């Protein structure tokens, strides 16, 4: 499919995805409530830091960190692994394959289309965060904000491609949701979602450095909170996009092989 066609189709796909995202108001509310883990961690770590700082983190630093984590998580979410698993088992992936548009583009549009709803949650949190911690905790360097935009796109792509990778496994083994469970367990530990990575012991920090998870959350959060300078930011951005390229390669291979095995169950 040509980039031109993708650009022409995308607005309609995003509109449809958005309409689907807002179809159930109650479900939307439950989903909002289910994404508040960083706010819980914020309360927990703030309490711990009340007596004395933890590493370089005082109370205000934890507030800034976890509010940024909440915002980054809201804007880089994807759930296509579950979608693909369902569609492979039910055979409904076939209906997607019948359309003259790459299924990855339609999945991406559906996932991105929920962004406005996520912004409704993320923007007030960002405003509250700024009022609580002040401008001083947020980077003022426009270059770092530029890198942050790229890092957010990279973070979303890693999440989305990891989901696709696990989704494509379903084409080989029928059900791969448990792999998503393993991925999420590692994500919660090594991404900086629950604990800032720099608070880990040296050995675990080294392991985290070799894994993709910190590029989903920790890296963009550190950019927002002025935890790293331009040089380190560019170096990490290069590694993040290296992960993006690696995931994209594996997804392409798994998808091509998987389609040959797809059984299009049912019907």
């Amino acid at each position: 499919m040509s980039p031109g066609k993708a650009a022409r189709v995308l607005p309609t796909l995003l509109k449809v995805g958005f309409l689907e995202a807002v179809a159930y108001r109650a479900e939307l509310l439950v989903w909002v409530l289910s994404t508040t883990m960083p706010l819980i961690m914020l309360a927990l770590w703030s309490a711990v830091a009340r007596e004395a700082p933890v590493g370089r983190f005082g109370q205000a630093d934890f507030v800034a960190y976890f509010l940024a984590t909440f915002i980054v998580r809201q804007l880089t979410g994807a759930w296509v692994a579950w979608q693909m698993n369902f569609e492979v088992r039910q055979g409904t992936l076939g209906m997607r394959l019948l359309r003259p548009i790459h299924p990855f583009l339609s999945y991406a549009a559906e996932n991105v289309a929920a962004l406005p709803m996520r912004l409704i949650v993320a923007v007030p949190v960002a405003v509250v965060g700024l009022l609580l911690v002040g401008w001083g905790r947020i980077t003022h360097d426009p270059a770092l904000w530029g890198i942050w935009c790229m890092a957010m796109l990279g973070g979303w792509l890693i999440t989305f491609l990891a989901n696709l990778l696990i989704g494509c496994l379903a084409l080989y083994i029928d059900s791969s949701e448990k792999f998503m469970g393993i991925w999420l367990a590692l994500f919660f530990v090594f991404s900086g979602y629950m604990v800032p990575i720099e608070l880990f012991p040296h050995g675990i920090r080294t392991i985290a450095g070799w894994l993709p998870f910190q590029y989903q959350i920790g890296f963009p959060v550190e950019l927002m909170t002025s935890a790293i300078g331009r040089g380190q930011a560019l170096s990490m951005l290069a590694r993040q996009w290296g992960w993006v390229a690696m995931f994209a390669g594996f997804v392409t291979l798994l998808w091509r092989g998987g389609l040959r095995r797809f059984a299009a169950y049912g019907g």
Partner: protein
Amino acid sequence: MILVHGLRKYYQVHKRPPGLKAAFRSLLHRTYTTVKAVDGISFEIGPGERVGFLGPNGAGKTTTLKVLSGLLHPSEGDVKVDGHVPKRREDVYLKKIMLVMGQKQQLLWDLPPAETFEMNRAIYEVPREQYRATLKELTELLGLGDLIDKPTRQLSLGERMKCELAAALIHRPKVLFLDEPTIGLDVSMQAVIRTFIKQYNERYGATLMLTSHYMDDVAALCPRVIVIDKGQLSYDGLLDDLVRRIRPEKRVVLYLNEAVDKSALLTLGKVVSNDHAMAVLQVPQDAVSATVSRALAHLPVKDLTVENPPLEEVMSELFAGNHLAPTTPETNGKTGNGVQIGVA
């Protein structure tokens, strides 16, 4: 338009006996068997033809349609549709075809069908003017009315199927694969769908390939049928020829002024039924006129009709018995104009 030569599609299926012990054993050691869903079939279908694809459950009909629409990669064989190899799923090919499955849906479940139509317009790059004209036409032909503005999940099965068909035809496909399009629908809705499909074929010259367990669908739509059983092609030809071959007899239906004794009917032919003032006789084709004359002369006949045996009965007999010998890929590939082959 459609060329299939030596098509085979095999699956590896994991088999396990029921029970906990077998479940644990299957964790360590799995047994796979090869299922030959389609086992070497060949046929050709010309542009604008309407062909019924028949066979018992598990015969390989849906698998073949999925291969033709590019969803499945064949294990062996050559398949071409309008010059395209379906498994490549090129955009230009996908814009020419559509597979409608009565048990699967493409409509967006939580949104009104109008949103699916609009999405398909964008995806298939249908010019807005053509889209408006097509939608108007489909709305009229299918009687969609305000259905397209209700959430899909709130539509009845029949309403949904009408909208499914509309969504499938927004881009005016040249080739339409229909897999049980009337399944679960009431009789009047089946008739609406059948009429619509025929009109679409006639108006746009689209090629149709239809599977259905409702023989009324096949009788109304498909002059030619391809019969497949256990993955192998067993008949390819005119439906009328198949009926004549399987059930060479005709049915004489007598509407009587008063009930008659069965023994009086037996002298005329085989009695299929004899209920009060209506009797149905089965007689050889060449004996129809003699039977009719004798019935009129000796029985209190008010009216009578001569009919073919019901298609359901023909098919039951066909699938249950060995009326047709399987054809081989070498002999069954030249049947585009409805020539009957491979009949034992």
